[in-house]
């Protein structure tokens, strides 16, 4: 069986992606729609707060819900970490993905001022990858042990760690 293609939804997502790219050309580097009808906005890291506030507050794009905040580690790139925000609009039943990039030492603006839900997600990204979030109210470890050194989800961290238990 093959997944049925939903051309109408694809066209609507493409149109909305072009709409957002036309309004925010300063920060949006690329817009893509995957074959599974998922809209992705690729952002410059300076534009996290403007883009997230726009998506939350604008009438045509009421993405009030932050569903997920994660990071992806691709060590071969210059900016190895890719921060991913998944937003959901309850008014229009639509999802959107916003992606930014950073390296190990550059801090990224915290999304807590836009979405309160980002608090623990950003603590997890800090703990697991080592991405520092500026203006975060309380950035400390959340999943690793108290004296743990290292950032486990990085690709150069070994599977069974450095310390024998």
């Amino acid at each position, binding site marked *: 069986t093959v997944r049925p293609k939903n051309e109408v939804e694809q066209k609507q997502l493409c149109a909305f992606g072009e*709409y957002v790219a*036309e*309004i*925010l*050309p*300063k*920060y*949006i*580097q*690329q817009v893509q729609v995957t074959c599974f009808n998922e809209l992705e906005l*690729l952002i*410059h890291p*300076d*534009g996290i707060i*403007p883009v997230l*506030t*726009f998506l*939350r*507050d*604008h*009438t*045509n794009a*009421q993405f009030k819900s932050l569903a997920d905040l994660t990071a992806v580690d*691709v060590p*071969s*790139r*210059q*900016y190895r970490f890719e921060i991913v925000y998944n937003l959901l609009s309850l*008014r229009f039943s639509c999802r959107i993905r916003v992606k930014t*990039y950073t390296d190990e030492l550059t801090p990224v603006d915290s999304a807590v001022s836009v979405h309160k839900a980002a608090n623990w997600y950003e603590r997890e990204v800090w703990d697991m990858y080592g991405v520092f979030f500026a203006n975060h109210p309380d950035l400390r470890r959340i999943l690793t042990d108290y004296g743990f050194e290292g950032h486990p989800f990085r690709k150069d961290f070994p599977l069974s760690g450095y310390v024998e238990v």
Partner: protein
Amino acid sequence: MFMLFMQTTGLVGLAVAENPHERLRILYTKILGVLQNIPKEAAYRKYTEQIVNQRFNLVRTETDVQKLQDKLNSGHIEEVIVQAENELSLARKMIQWKPWEPLVEEPPSDQWRWPI
């Protein structure tokens, strides 16, 4: 047993708005005023003015609250008021951020390539 003449929106934390037409009129005028500070060619100004004028006309012509809600097709009138307040705060922030300027910085060429 007499029933108290009280309405609810049915939503937690949203009180019933008395005189929503007046409130919406004030908010939409404020938004249009703030949008004047944005350059005319900016796409944000164009589209937001379109939306706001559309809703403003509906608010002006339709005096019945229920029919206005149906025409706007955007949930309760209190939610429309909240949305207008959000749009106003967004317009004020947009003036500082100026997102209509050209791209800040191009990404490195391999940044968004997938598969790597």
